[in-house]
């Protein structure tokens, strides 16, 4: 059964025939012809050649014909912009038709014609339609503003349509309000800071009134908009909640979830002892449960959001565990999400039920799901202490099934259980050892080796077991190799007499035969530790490990708060802040939950949540122990003098490596971070590296512009760039922002430390990695008082340039480690090279001349500086403020040539010639010569353009 028999008819000949029919005098024939054209168009045939003929049919009283012509126009106007102008008159006329439906149709169609020329003509009719007496026309016009904005944003702003749109929020008709909100929200997305949706109690009231009467889609727009509002007090918050609650019973799940978002956010402001607060909590559970009986795609989105909600307010769903039980025919993506939530809801009260379910899942068919179920059992053990024993016995049961992947997965989680409850379940080790041969996945092998190493003193044949792994050392993955190395060293420290040979074997395998730098470095560290100070080695390698906790897989509280504000959005599905992935919205403001009523006692805010209340327990990450190492060495940061003489047994390689003392350790840390393991941690705790060195894009404009921008002030001035070096999300709540500056000859790193976590931070210390100019802290970090939650403290850290040197990429990159009582964090930043120009950088004229000639051409670079509106004298005096000294000035053919010199802290001289043409804003720094004095060998040729670009400033 076919709608149209024309599909096959339209060929070139047919086009001519249609053309003739379209131009026919008979109305009926015309109409039939247009229909045929549309039929061909909808099935994708090209009938654009008929454009003028079809447009000619537009002026008609026949509504059906008009609609068909409009359909045609929307499709082809883009390809025939000049022709499209022909249609404008009819549109303008239709916009004044007595029938509101025709007016609306015209304005709607006009907005869909994405042709620049047409948009100009659209403005007047649109303005009229926005103020039309009929709500249907106003509502259509509101959307049209969004369309127009998409085509030509500037035009919309110039024509003042945005203000008209804002007025429509107060319209008497709910549909108009909803569409105005929708249009504004869409426009606001491309203008993150425009404050288009300026919400005040009056508009909120309008929105809430409209909410009850508009369509389901309109309700979504309005609810999402409401969620951006911050009520003035708890009373207003409660009244909004009361008016939003009925939306929880809507059949459209998107409406329900948007309502949940508003309630979750505004609940924060309600006092916990209020009766209404409890009522609201109870009301939230049923709609969330209902979402789970919808189609699987809806379930998935709902589950991702429920995952956030249970982390923030576990009490809402704590009695609803059973709805998350996995059904046989759920799609896999729903199964995995349900499993995750089950663990989050697991508590002492329901753990028996949960375990029985998980055990059931572990016998299902789907391998991925089974693995995750086994892991989940381990997570239960870690989360609910009382259940640990039962979990272990369940895991042992599963190991007995001998299903290969189940066994491997079980061993990996048992290792985690050992980490949480050391010295408690060693009795199971024997069973584990029985399955040694069946392990073929690196993670499981690494876990097993870790267990053997950790409990070497209780396993009689530990040396034999480890030796058996050693045979195929080179075929193992890095993870296993690292683990094996650590395990054997542990074994040696525990039973030194019998295992000397073994340890030597593994150290030589790791250091000589391996080309993996991570493995080699760890090998050297152990070797050196063992040969210099076995006692220290014992302290380091066998140090007590911090316990792991359930927190490991919780979302970091500040991120969680932000995500709660984004319930129902893509951000909530990805569990990432919108700024992390939404294109073109880098300026998106981070949303925060409002504080509770009487927010003086701010630590109390999340007390009901339980999540944020818990102290940030130690979370395992690599560098636990290296952090301690750092700590040991941190007190005299500048005196990282020559390393202790290497013992006789040491190889040259080792010496080289450790030559830098502490710094190489820091360097190693970075390396380790990248490769996912470090000696203390041992590979394979499954935790992803939590403290990766953060890198930031270098300042785009380079140093030059700032210096010129600085106005007349003297010296290298106040803040150049205050950058956020370490965002709170990456550092368990510690945020570090700051800038580098040179003040009175002293280089300073000026930092603001902000505590965004819930607990107090103390014991701050700082350390730099080796860097290109030997920057190092000139003293300890002066943070004397503990930093409380939401407090921030400003510190200026003087820097010296006598630290160890290593060339960085980019040259001005500085890697920093900051430690506090919680953890060690790493970040990297870039400093403006101008802060390294010293005050005595003025070269004698003769010396300058001679040096200039001496320098080989290789050391020369040229570039242009654009858009600099200063004459040569002003430039010269400004540059002097930054220790760039003008030695001589020449004027040749209207060009000013400035000869300049500057000296870096490491004694390198940079000479420059600056060519300024009066009236031309572009400077040419035509030649720059560098002369090495002092430290040589460090600076490679790429220092040149770099140093220069900054220096030219």
């Amino acid at each position: 059964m076919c709608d149209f028999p024309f599909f096959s008819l339209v060929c070139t000949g047919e086009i001519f025939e249609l053309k003739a029919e379209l131009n026919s005098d008979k109305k009926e024939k015309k109409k039939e012809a247009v229909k045929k054209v549309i039929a061909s168009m909808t099935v994708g045939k090209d009938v654009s050649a008929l454009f003028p003929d079809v447009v000619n049919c537009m002026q008609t009283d026949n509504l059906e014909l008009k609609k068909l012509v409009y359909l045609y126009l929307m499709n082809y106007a883009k390809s025939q912009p000049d022709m499209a102008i022909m249609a404008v008159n009819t549109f303008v006329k239709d916009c004044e038709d007595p029938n509101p439906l025709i007016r609306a149709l015209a304005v709607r169609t006009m907005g869909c014609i994405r042709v620049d020329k047409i948009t100009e003509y659209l403005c007047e009719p649109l303005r009229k339609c926005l103020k039309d007496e009929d709500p249907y026309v106003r509502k259509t016009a509101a959307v049209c503003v969004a369309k127009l904005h998409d085509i030509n944003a500037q035009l919309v702003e110039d024509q003042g349509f945005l203000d008209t749109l804002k007025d429509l929020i107060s319209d008497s008709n709910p549909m108009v309000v909803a569409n105005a909100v929708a249009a504004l929200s869409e426009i606001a997305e491309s203008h993150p800071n425009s404050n288009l949706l300026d919400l005040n109690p009056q508009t909120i009231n309008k929105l809430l009134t409209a909410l009850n009467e508009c369509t389901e889609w309109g309700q979504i727009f309005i609810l999402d908009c409401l969620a951006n509002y911050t009520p003035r007090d708890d009373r207003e918050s409660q009244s909004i909640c009361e008016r939003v609650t009925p939306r929880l019973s809507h059949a459209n799940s998107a409406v329900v979830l948007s309502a949940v978002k508003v309630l979750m956010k505004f609940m924060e402001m309600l006092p916990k002892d209020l009766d209404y607060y409890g009522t609201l909590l109870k009301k939230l559970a049923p709609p969330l449960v209902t979402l789970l009986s919808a189609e699987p795609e809806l379930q998935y989105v709902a589950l991702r959001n429920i995952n956030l909600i249970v982390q923030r307010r576990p009490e809402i769903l704590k009695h609803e565990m059973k709805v998350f039980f996995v059904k046989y025919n759920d799609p896999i993506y729903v199964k995995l999400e349900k499993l995750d939530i089950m663990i989050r809801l697991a508590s002492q009260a329901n753990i028996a039920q949960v375990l029985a379910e998980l055990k059931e899942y572990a016998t299902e068919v789907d391998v991925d799901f089974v693995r995750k179920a086994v892991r989940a059992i381990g997570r239960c053990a870690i989360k609910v202490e009382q259940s640990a024993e039962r979990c272990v016995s369940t895991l042992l049961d599963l190991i007995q099934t001998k299903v290969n992947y189940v066994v491997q997965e079980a061993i990996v989680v048992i290792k985690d259980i050992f980490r949480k409850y050391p010295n408690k379940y060693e009795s199971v080790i024997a069973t584990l050892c029985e399955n040694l041969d069946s392990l073929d996945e690196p993670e499981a092998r690494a876990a097993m080796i870790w267990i053997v190493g950790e409990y070497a003193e209780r396993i009689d044949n530990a040396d034999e077991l480890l030796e058996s792994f050693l045979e195929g050392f080179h075929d193992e993955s890095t993870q296993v190799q690292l683990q094996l190395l650590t395990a054997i060293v542990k074994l040696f420290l525990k039973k030194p007499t019998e295992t000397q040979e073994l340890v030597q074997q593994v150290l030589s395998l790791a250091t000589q035969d391996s080309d993996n730098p991570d493995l080699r470095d760890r090998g050297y560290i152990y070797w050196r530790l063992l040969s210099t100070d076995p006692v220290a080695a014992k302290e380091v390698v066998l140090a007590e490990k911090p316990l792991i906790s359930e927190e490991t897989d919780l979302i970091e509280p500040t991120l969680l708060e932000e995500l709660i504000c984004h319930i129902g959005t893509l951000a909530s599905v990805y569990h990432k802040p919108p700024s992390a992935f939404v294109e073109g919205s880098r300026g998106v403001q981070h949303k925060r939950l409002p504080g509770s009523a009487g927010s003086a006692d701010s630590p109390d805010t999340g007390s009901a949540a339980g999540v944020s209340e818990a102290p940030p327990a130690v979370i395992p990450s690599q560098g636990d122990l290296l952090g301690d190492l750092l700590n040991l060495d941190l007190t005299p940061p500048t005196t990282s003098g020559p390393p202790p003489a290497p013992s006789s047994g040491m190889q040259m390689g080792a010496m080289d490596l450790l030559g830098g003392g502490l710094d190489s350790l820091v360097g190693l840390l970075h390396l380790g971070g990248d490769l996912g393991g470090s000696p203390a941690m041992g590979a394979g705790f499954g935790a992803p590296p939590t403290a990766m060195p953060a890198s930031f894009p270098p300042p785009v404009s380079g140093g030059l512009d700032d210096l010129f921008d600085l106005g007349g002030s003297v010296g290298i001035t106040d803040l150049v760039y205050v950058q956020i070096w370490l965002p709170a999300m990456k550092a368990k709540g510690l945020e570090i922002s700051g800038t580098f500056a040179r003040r009175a000859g002293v280089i300073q790193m000026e930092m603001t430390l902000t505590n965004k976590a819930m607990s107090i931070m103390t014991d701050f210390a700082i350390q730099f990695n080796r860097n290109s100019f030997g920057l190092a802290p000139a003293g300890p970090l002066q943070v004397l008082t503990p930093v409380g939650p939401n407090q921030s403290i400003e510190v200026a850290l003087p820097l010296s340039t006598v630290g160890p040197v290593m060339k960085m990429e980019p040259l001005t990159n500085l890697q920093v480690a900051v430690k506090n009582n919680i953890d060690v964090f790493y970040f990297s930043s870039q400093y403006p090279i101008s802060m390294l120009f010293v005050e005595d950088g003025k070269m004698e004229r003769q010396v300058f001349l001679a040096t200039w000639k001496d320098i080989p051409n290789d050391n020369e670079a040229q570039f242009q500086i654009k858009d600099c509106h200063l004459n040569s004298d002003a430039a010269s005096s400004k540059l002097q403020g930054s220790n760039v000294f003008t030695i001589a000035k020449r004027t040749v053919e209207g060009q000013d040539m400035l000869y300049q010199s500057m000296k870096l802290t490491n004694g390198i001289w940079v000479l420059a010639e600056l060519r300024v043409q009066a009236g031309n804003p572009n400077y040419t720094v035509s030649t720059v010569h560098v002369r090495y004095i002092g430290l040589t060998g460090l600076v490679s040729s790429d220092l040149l353009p770099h140093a220069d670009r900054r220096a030219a400033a």
Partner: protein
Amino acid sequence: MIHSLFLINHTGDIFLEKHWKSVIGRSVCDYFFEAREKAVEPENVPPVLQTPHHYLISIYRGKLFFLSVIQTEVPPLFVIEFLHRVADTIQDYFGECSEGVIKDNVVTVYELLEEMLDNGFPLATESNVLKEMIRPPTILRSVVNTLTGASNVGDTLPTGQLSNVPWRRVGVKYTNNEAYFDVIEEIDAILDKSGTTVFAEIQGVIEACVRLTGMPDLTLSFMNPRLLDDVSFHPCVRFKRWESERVLSFIPPDGNFTLMNYHVSSQNLVAIPVYVKQSISFFETGPCGRLDITIGPKQTMGKTVEGLMVTIHMPKAVLSANLTATQGTYTYDLATKVLVWDIGKLNPQKLPNLKGSLTTQAGTPKPEDNPSLNIDLKIQQLAISGLKVSRLDMYGEKYKPFKGVKYLTKAGKFQVRT
């Protein structure tokens, strides 16, 4: 908002595309095909995918993927709900939602999509508004269209969109005025080996078919509205009256619609109508196993259980089944390893039993995974939660309509673990 829509069949061909803003090339679907490949089963494709410049949100209905492309932050549920609405509309118009039907009616579908979204914002999604503008095909009309080349674009405008009750058109006229309500309940349950209920809940829905002249205002009340604490309504229901009086007061849409959904989860209210005694075991030695299943009535409230059917997904190693059924017939599909036992009516005097041996592949180890049993059943004239409609009143019109209520209980996701 929603940028583009692609309809993709199960073999991965894009057979219809629609763009509401600028055109986005088909190549964006490659990311989807990649995910589709990885997921193996079409049901398992993740509904939300991220690509470098777009987000892809898809649903899987009737062996078709409805894939929408969005560019900015749009609530995913909004998109998924809308896609389901598109599928519902197609189903409503053409009786089914399949590739063949869409291809046959491609012009109508295209016109529908045009009316449903404007610039990515939902415009007219109510079935009665759409039907006013774009007439659904009837056999007569398609014959006439074939002969005359007429289109389906109506010469009327969506007057319904101007009214305060957008879901109902004005000027409805019937010679027979009737209002039927079907209370349909589905039992979702998981029973463990021993027959204990691990989890059970009821998903209820009231489907209405209302053909009434004019603008009737209906009130539906229940004998026991207390049962309903978790409900979601069609937009026509006045929520305030429900909150204060526990009655459903509404001006109904014309024709078929879902009046409300509800959800009963408290354990003691969910009756399990049948019990299943089963044992499926495989021997350590020899390539065979044994199967024995008996089904009997449990809490049926005196009604007959009909349409009883058991579906078992057997482990891969099971080659064949040699069974005897005391009632009904069984089939074992070798390719999909699905055993289906179609029983029919449950006779409490003579319980149906399926018994016999299974042959497994020689040389393979005993299957590790336990198959689970999915049960299908139907009970007429019973809402298992005990929900009952007490009366239906009509205001605003003078005639006497014909009224009727039907009840039906079905098994939803009802599974028994072994």
